[in-house]
């Protein structure tokens, strides 16, 4: 286990979620969302790129950001399970985005003091971006939760479906614990209170109950994923793998 592997986990979270929400491009219910989704997806993918590049350099085996993104299989991906969940409907998509951003905003704020200069640089940009991801997704959670009978029911379904993936956000793998001990990355468990506060504020307005998870689904950090990730990777990697080393 090494610090670069913790950066890889973080990069995988961002790439997978960024790719997921980009799937809405051209399919969103209104033009504003057709712009918003790829926009937020680009923020996440941009963050992932810098983290992959840095992780590859720290690993020291000459792997580039493209090698790390396109040439690892499902079992080698280390993202948490929340980010790979399928888009389903707008309620699922926006709740997933809101949960993730509500975690990443305080994470990046804490990472502004990282011992690693690249992490500090990423954090400086990403914390600002996560603030408007929280705002945008949070507004949708409220609009749907406190909306029509249909939208509220969908929002409740999304809460029911996604809450078992929340706990994993606060887990630290062995690699993450190393990075935390070295002062490179913030301690995940410390962010729970802030996350709960952000979520309960929005849920109160959205007329949603925050359920207590009867159990938590984990495994992403060990490469144990849901089948949803395989389909995402297949689509994302096919061109790169079909034309190895192609340049334009």
């Amino acid at each position, binding site marked *: 286990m090494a610090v670069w592997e913790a950066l890889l986990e973080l990069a995988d979270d961002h790439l997978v979620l*960024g790719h997921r929400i980009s799937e809405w491009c051209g399919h969103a219910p209104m*033009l*504003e969302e057709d*712009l*918003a989704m790829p*926009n*937020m*997806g*680009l*923020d*996440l*993918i*941009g*963050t992932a*790129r*810098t983290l992959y590049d840095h992780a590859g350099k720290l690993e020291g085996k000459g792997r580039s950001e493209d090698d790390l993104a396109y040439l690892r299989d499902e079992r080698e991906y280390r993202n948490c399970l929340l980010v790979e969940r399928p888009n389903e409907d707008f309620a699922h998509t926006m709740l997933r985005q809101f949960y993730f951003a509500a975690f990443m905003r305080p994470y990046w704020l804490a990472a502004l003091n990282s011992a690693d*200069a*690249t992490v*500090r*640089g*990423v954090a*400086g*940009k*990403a914390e*600002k*971006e996560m603030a*408007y991801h*929280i*705002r*945008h997704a*949070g*507004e949708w959670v409220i609009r749907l939760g406190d909306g029509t009978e249909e939208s509220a029911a969908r929002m409740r379904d999304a809460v029911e479906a996604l809450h078992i993936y929340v706990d994993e956000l606060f887990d630290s793998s062995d690699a993450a614990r190393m990075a935390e001990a070295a002062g490179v990355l913030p301690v995940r468990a410390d962010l729970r209170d802030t996350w709960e506060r952000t979520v309960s*504020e929005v849920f109160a307005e959205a007329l949603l109950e925050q359920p207590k998870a009867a159990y938590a689904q984990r495994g992403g950090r060990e490469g144990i994923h849901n089948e949803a990730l395989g389909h995402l990777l297949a689509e994302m990697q096919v061109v790169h793998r079909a034309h190895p080393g192609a340049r334009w």
Partner: protein
Amino acid sequence: MTVCWQGSAEAAWEAAAAVPDPEVPCVTVADLGILRWVRVENGVAVAGVTPTYSGCPAVLAIELAVEAALRDAGFEARIERVLSPPWTTDWITEAGREKLRDYGIAPPVKSSGSIRSLFGEVMVACPKCGSTDTEKLSEFGSTACKAHYRCRSCAEPFDYFKCI
């Protein structure tokens, strides 16, 4: 912003600074504050460029354009991507803000450092008539850095350069 004026660094700065932004061509990379510095090291012009947003697709185009401009000015050139400190709209120069307004884009409301409430709104003045009776149509606009607004006084729809 650190600018090292040594040898022909001034010429290098001028060449790089004149490069227009590919997505908002009314302003240059210097107006936007994304060209951080230009140094000449052993005859090589090195330009520090900072991205606006993490995933701004224009980053590479900007870096290539700055490099090309330096080569055209007769320098060997190299680009360094600067992540820290992060770019803020406060770095857009006064001249840059004026050019944005003339172009029909409302410049960012000043002092992005202030933490507004979670769902706080800002007052954006219409670049055409100056009225602040405007409404946000979409927080996400034609590029990562812009939101879409409409003026209620003169009915002009316009882009707002978001504050970050």
